[in-house]
């Protein structure tokens, strides 16, 4: 249930992101989701990719600072109010979220990627409420 997320430090420089996506494309790494947290000088690129470990190695060899972080993918219905409901559930259980980003896959489902201190707690809460979680097999390339 824990998904490996790639985080990459990116300077705010024209073409830098393109260089990175180029490297991933050349190495046949699929990107399922990504977000960029940006500041004036730099950004942190967070990605869910098909093959996280080899992707990290490849990027490291190209000089990128890369980190692999555990996250979970909470699956919710792609419909009004679902995100609110899910978040309410987490907050009422005192779960503090560090960051998150989401992607809607297809017409009926959306996935929210969540990073938090106690991922297991989130998993427990979500499971208890019979909510769906992204499985490694859903995103990883074989």
């Amino acid at each position, binding site marked *: 249930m824990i998904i490996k997320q790639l985080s990459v430090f990116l300077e705010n420089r024209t073409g830098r992101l393109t260089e990175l996506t180029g490297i991933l494309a050349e190495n046949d790494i699929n990107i399922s989701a990504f977000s960029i947290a940006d500041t004036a*000088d730099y950004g942190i690129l967070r990605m869910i990719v098909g093959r996280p470990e080899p992707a990290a190695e490849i990027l490291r060899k190209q000089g990128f*600072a890369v980190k692999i972080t555990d996250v979970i993918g909470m699956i919710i219905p792609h419909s009004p109010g679902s995100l609110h409901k899910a978040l309410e559930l987490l907050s009422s259980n005192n779960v503090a979220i560090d960051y998150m980003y989401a992607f809607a896959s297809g017409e009926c489902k959306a996935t929210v990627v969540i990073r938090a201190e106690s991922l297991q707690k989130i998993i427990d809460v979500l499971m208890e409420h019979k909510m769906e979680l992204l499985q490694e097999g859903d995103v990883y390339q074989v």
Partner: protein
Amino acid sequence: MIWNKQYECMEREALQKLQGERVKSMVKRVYDTVPFYRKKLQEEGIEPGDINTIDDLKKLPFTTKQDLRDNYPFGLFTLPQTDIVRLHASSGTTGKSTVVGYSHNDIQMWSEVVARSLTMAGVTNSDIIQIAYGYGLFTGGLGLHYGAEKVGASVIPISGGNTKKQLQLMEDFGSTVLACTPSYAAYLGEALAEEKIDRRNIKLKAGVFGAEPWTEGMRAQIEQLLGIKAYDIYGLSEIIGPGVSMECHCQKGMHVFEDHFIPEIINPDTGVVLPYGELGELVFTPATKEAMPLIRYRTRDLTRLHAEKCDCGRTLVRMEKCVGRSDDMLIIRGVNVFPSQVEAVLLEMSETKPHYLLVVDRENNLDTVEIQVEINEQFFSDEVKELEALRQRIRANISSTLGISATIRLVEHGTIERSMGKAQRVVDKRKLQ
């Protein structure tokens, strides 16, 4: 006008004879009273009796800033504490401060050379001089202050900062002379324009600026903004503070007060004395100082000396504006900064040796420093708040160790150019002006 014709216009032969006598007696004095120098001279096989004329000066070993640090705080004093009337010290950015003690006579001599300097800028007892150099351990404020009093000018000891008040007093008191760092002078000039103060109410005619490197372009700007003639003054606390040398109205270099501070230019690598006109490291022997004379102190400043008689009538040699340093020290807003200190700060914060680049620039006449630090995986967190906290931590450590505030820019690993030889750690864009 010349404050002290006897010494400022002395024939070279007579001056050299005087210098020889002064060095001779100073060497004997330090040999007798400072164990550090006695040992050093003995190691070189030199006895005070070997030093008789100014030509013998080059036989003597050099003194470095490190020697001052090693003898912190009072190890190089030739007088007991009862005869020390003033202590000044550097900010101690590289660890230990360098401490300089002054006797009563030293303060008199210092006042004398500053009086000579101010006279070069046309200051008389009819002037009102606003001293906006910092007062305190830094030599700028008090150094100028005593000299200005000796000239008989009315002193406004306002010290640095508090720009609004500076302008107000300038207007209300009718200050005619301003003394401060050139960057602050330019800042005051701009503030003056912004405050929409009627220039007819400002009576400034001259400025005495030093303590940091500045360009001719900046001089023109200050002169235009403040409507004054801007004079360059040079000094360093190890020798006396401001008043080691000063520009006369001819503005063709700064006259060194050679009867007190004997200048030499050496090849910084070999230590060989270079003839007038050649570029090299400036070395001073402040032979008349009582409390803490030094033998051939290496300033690390690179410049040239010119001995041709000046149109102003003074025979004292002139030194050009310093063109750089023989070490890698930077002077940023009057603070001495060594890139190695930045490295030390960064090293303390991480296991690995970080790559960094100091980018120094000047915006609105104030020095700015950006330190680019490469992020390696050890540093890297995937959370902005962590990286920002790291940035703040670097900033705070730089500020507390070096005494300057810098912008910290986190850059990608490999961004900073690696070189095969000596690493390029500094980009000083100020020189491009």
